[in-house]
């Protein structure tokens, strides 16, 4: 039994677009703000995000890189529950005054518990990404904008 998933989150990061792009696409960075995984920034690459199972997550999510347009857009196929059709996550970046705006869209059809898990999980992960970008990201050109 699946339902419509349609998450749309926006965040502002006080760093240049290249820095935010790096945080989204560097495997070491992803391991620190999202979860450990074998991501590679290559279209078609299949990877798995692993962690401790919870009451509403089985403990692994399989993904495929569907689109990669540095430094603006990345899309992943995402399967965190046993469903027929994978869902899709799209990260979009745009330079704005003083930093970068990220839009995260996660859509598709999935189970109710998966929707609950993703709706609670992404805001936490985006906050962790903000911590990472503001404390951990190496200084980049244009960082003093």
């Amino acid at each position, binding site marked *: 039994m699946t339902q419509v998933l349609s998450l749309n989150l926006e965040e502002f990061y*006080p760093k240049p677009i290249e820095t935010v792009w790096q945080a989204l696409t560097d495997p070491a960075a992803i*391991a620190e703000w999202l979860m450990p995984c074998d991501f590679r920034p290559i279209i078609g690459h299949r990877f798995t995000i692993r962690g401790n199972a919870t009451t509403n997550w089985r403990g692994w999510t399989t993904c495929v890189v569907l689109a990669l347009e540095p430094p603006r857009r990345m899309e992943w196929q995402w399967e965190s529950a046993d469903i027929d059709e994978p869902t899709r996550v799209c990260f979009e970046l745009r330079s704005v005054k003083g930093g970068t705006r990220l839009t995260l869209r996660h859509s598709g059809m999935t189970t109710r518990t998966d929707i609950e*898990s993703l709706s*609670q999980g992404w805001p*936490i*992960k985006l*906050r962790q990404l903000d911590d*990472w970008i503001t*404390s*951990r990201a190496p200084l980049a050109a244009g960082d003093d904008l």
Partner: protein
Amino acid sequence: MMPPSKATSDVFHAIADNNRRLLLGFLAHEARPVGACVEALGITYAAVSQHLSVLYAVGLVEREAHGRQRLYRARFEPLQEVHDWTGMYQTYWQDRLKGLGKYLNRSEDRE
């Protein structure tokens, strides 16, 4: 995805981990950035980040944005729930101490 599930988002779970208790102590008197927590605890950045999220979910830390810095500070109000719970067992110790008093009185009488 790894959100704190309902089972793990209560204050008792939040303080059940030694590193999270250390974080609360470290953030008790001063708001500090994640990097300082990583240095102080000597564990990985990823672990500190997750521990802070658990504490944040139950309100045991608050987060302030200062320009490009993010600072965390401990908040102790949610611990009231723990305090109330342990309070229920205070009468146990009061009864034990009364018992000890009676015992001592009796032994004094015998001497």
